[in-house]
């Protein structure tokens, strides 16, 4: 069960208070009538579904009822940041990849980094791993 920091309540709360709402930053086309069926279908149904860093929307359903965004690793389930609606993530797959190449650290297949492969720089960015 996750522990999620609500950027509006400014507290960590239990996952039971929240509901996941899927991929974040999906914007409804400004002019739907100008969309092709393909574009409209893409907007409705097609998702990034990454194995790794995922920006996703949650709602603090039992709480402030605000929607907000979470950057989370979909294998380790580690939450790297939460941010308010309208804001952009500070941590992305790309930003992490840059750090990882510098650190030359291998992440185990399960996504969990083992004790033998510690690297402070990556660990701090990757948050929960050490």
């Amino acid at each position, binding site marked *: 069960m996750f522990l999620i920091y609500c950027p509006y*309540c*400014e507290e960590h709360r239990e996952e*039971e*208070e929240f509901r996941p709402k899927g991929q974040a930053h999906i914007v409804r086309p400004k002019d739907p009538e100008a969309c092709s069926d393909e574009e409209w279908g893409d907007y409705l149904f097609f998702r990034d579904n990454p194995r790794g860093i995922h920006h996703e929307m949650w709602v603090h359903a039992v709480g*402030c009822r605000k929607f907000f965004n979470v950057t989370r690793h979909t294998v380790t389930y580690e939450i790297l940041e939460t941010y308010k609606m309208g804001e952009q993530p500070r941590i992305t797959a790309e930003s992490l990849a840059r750090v990882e190449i510098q650190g030359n650290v291998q992440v185990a297949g399960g996504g969990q980094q083992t004790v033998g492969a510690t690297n402070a720089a990556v660990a701090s960015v990757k948050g929960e791993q050490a």
Partner: protein
Amino acid sequence: MSNAATFDTRTEANIPVESPLAYSYQRSGAPAPSAKSRVVLRERAFLGHLVLRGGAIVLDEAVRAVLGFGLPARPNTLSHSEDGARSIQWLSPDEWLLIVPGGEEFELEGALRNALGDAHYAIVNVSGGQTLLELSGEKARELLMKSTPSDVHPEAFPVGKGVTAVFAKTNLILRRPTETRWELVLRRSFSDYCYRWLLDAGAEYDIGVER
């Protein structure tokens, strides 16, 4: 003016009213508190409950002008009048719950609307839809631990805090106005469930219900 309809839902005192727990008392009973009771529950029915929506700065100003105290400054906290009879709780960055003695809510709404003028805000009277329970006693906190995943340890939940919380399989508003007292604000339709839950979970503490 916000151009919203106001409506005084109260009427003469001689018309009978029923609290959301009326059926529950009849169906599940209300064990009287005894010397053994380590948790005591009391319903404070028929209070005035108003939801305020809008920007904190404008609302704070209006509330101060009308009630003499302001909005709570921080998320998840309460502010209240000196005698404790009126309180305002932060619910979200643009939402507060105002609880006042029963019967004050309509005039208060009007006064606030006057004070707020053309500002963007909303006030909604929800007095019929919720009730407030007080919990006290040495095991009140443990009873809450059985019921909610919120951290109710004094370090994490000091006096003056209030949150929306998961409670058993529903949710409610949980507040701690004083060192010894907890308040639960329940939705009417879930109140029987919450009441039965409290009696069941509180049985081992000889929970008593003050009526």
